[in-house]
């Protein structure tokens, strides 16, 4: 009998429980899949996911590469952060740009939803097929969007990368079934049960580095179609004519990060993580409102997911 075995019970905080759950999920994938990869989009959720991976496999390096499905239209600060994180984690980075989209010069100004379809959805499918990855970690959370709220932590995709929301497997307790039919692959979401507030709080507590664009600073912006867009480089096409656009300096920050011509900013003065959290708690709009991609129609995210989008 161990004399020390009966101290007062320890209550884990919800963040400790979430952290342990995510680490457990990642280790499970590593022991159950042949060729895993981690989707790395450079955003705050990716930052937390990468941090958790480093914890899960410490003192080793996470035994899988990072995959950045690049659209060539991300903010410059995102590319800088990506390269920095790759260096400090010691992990391998695979950057995939859909060659078809490169050849056709697909861009968010001329091509509308084709931009997301080709660069992100098709690009992701190409990369997964080309490298033969059978399990891919993604940083999506269930609180983000209502079709995500329905998705399992281990989410299966057909050989053509389709999600069938009406035919999801049972997923009981913390026992994950990673068995695949030949050709199937798994998307795994270790952050499923985290909320936006949890992510920020964890970034704060663990001092996780994030892209500076999340903090408010004066940046060149234009207002367009109800979104406040940042003019990040000279590819941004300013509208000329009577109501011509002239970039104005505004103190802004971003709640989510994607392709810069499609990502709306908030006017803000929050320069620290607690101030960001404070603004978030007092806001009246959801996180995805700043993303042009979700507003097409009620079920648009589900349709994109069915087609293979993360």
């Amino acid at each position, binding site marked *: 009998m161990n004399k020390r075995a009966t101290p007062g019970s320890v209550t884990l905080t919800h963040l400790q429980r979430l952290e342990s759950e995510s680490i457990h999920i990642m280790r499970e994938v590593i022991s159950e899949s042949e060729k895993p990869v981690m989707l790395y989009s450079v955003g705050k959720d990716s930052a937390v996911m990468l941090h958790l991976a480093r914890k899960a496999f410490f003192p080793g390096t996470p035994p899988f590469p990072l995959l950045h499905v690049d659209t060539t239209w991300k903010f410059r600060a995102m590319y800088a952060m990506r390269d920095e994180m790759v260096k400090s984690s010691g992990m391998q980075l695979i950057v995939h740009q859909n060659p078809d989209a490169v050849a056709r010069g697909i861009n968010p100004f001329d091509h509308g939803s084709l931009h997301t379809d080709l660069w992100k959805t098709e690009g992701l499918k190409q990369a997964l097929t080309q490298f033969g990855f059978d399990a891919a970690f993604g940083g999506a959370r269930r609180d983000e969007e209502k079709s995500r709220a329905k998705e399992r932590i281990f989410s299966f995709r057909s050989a053509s990368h389709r999600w069938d929301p009406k035919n999801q497997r049972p997923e009981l307790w913390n026992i994950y079934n990673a068995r695949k039919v030949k050709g199937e692959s798994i998307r795994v979401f270790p952050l499923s049960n985290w909320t936006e*507030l949890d992510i920020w709080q964890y970034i704060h507590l663990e001092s996780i580095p994030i892209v500076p664009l999340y903090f408010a600073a004066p940046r060149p912006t234009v207002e367009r179609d109800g979104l406040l867009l940042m003019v990040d480089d000279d590819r941004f096409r300013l509208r000329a004519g009577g109501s011509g656009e002239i970039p104005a300096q505004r103190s802004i920050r971003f709640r989510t990060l994607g392709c810069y011509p499609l990502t709306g900013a908030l006017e803000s003065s929050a320069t620290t993580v607690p101030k960001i959290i404070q603004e978030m*708690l007092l806001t009246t709009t*959801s996180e995805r409102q700043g993303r042009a991609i979700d507003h097409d129609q009620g079920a648009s995210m589900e349709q994109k997911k069915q087609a293979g989008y993360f």
Partner: protein
Amino acid sequence: MTGAPAHASYKSDDLAAEDIDAYLIRHQHKSLLRFITCGSVDDGKSTLIGRLLYDSKMIFDDQLAALAADSKRIGTQGQNIDFALLVDGLAAEREQGITIDVAYRFFATDKRKFIVADTPGHEQYTRNMVTGASTADLAIILIDARKGVLTQTRRHSYLAHLLGIKSLVLAVNKMDLVDYAQSRFDAIVAEYRVFADSIGIRDFLAMPISSLAGDNITSASGNTRWYLGPSLMTHLESVEIDRAGSQSRPFRMPVQWVNRPNLDFRGFAGLISEGLIRPGDAVRVLPSGRTSKVSRIVTMGADLQAAVAGQSVTITLADGGLKGRRIGLQPRRCARRD
């Protein structure tokens, strides 16, 4: 449908506005309760969750605008807001007006954080209800006051009990449609109690509610003065969650993965399922049956002096012999403390 009542403000806006650091410290130490809503089709599971989210101000303006538009287009509540559309996230669900798969939603009050799983009532989707139930600490079994205990009510109760959910709430819903009649409520509770006894459910809390009208959801309703128990939210905020129990049992940890970054390190990685472990404790490694001593509990921040059930850790063993020799220790086997 009227808006949220003025008192229904669980989100601590004031503290967040005045002192964000104090808010964060408080929030960091909130406990987490996971629960499900279950019961038969159309007993109001999704509506109840929509109501909880709405009253706890977890619905943003842009989501509310989309909800209002959807309610008019495909809702089942006429010109009023159809809360079920908040959780029925799949296109097929919204078109057919039914819940097919479990949806997870998140909200918080001053006291707790909640993850709620809204489960499908239809018989053919019962397997999806089981997925939601498996991670729940508490189940709310909804009953339509007009219909009483149905086959699917029994089926879900049985499954919730089978999966080990200890706390059950019997929420007799749509009380507004039976004129808040105590006799109707009492009859349903009596019928349910007979059934619960027969399958070994020892205890449950019964309450009369109306998700649509908001009775007994966040505060005691004037329409049911004969009911003296807590409101649903008061109960969810205060019900005890038994997690400490698993810490007092003997140490058990299934090894998920052996961490061997170099020749000098061999760590056994896993999620502690029961008990507590400290460096120096003796453990038995299964299936070989060999015993060894815990040398370190390794995490990225610093080594831990103790770890408990629910924590993901990497443990190294003191027995140098284990390092050099192949001992057949494979992932998925158990390390157990003697």
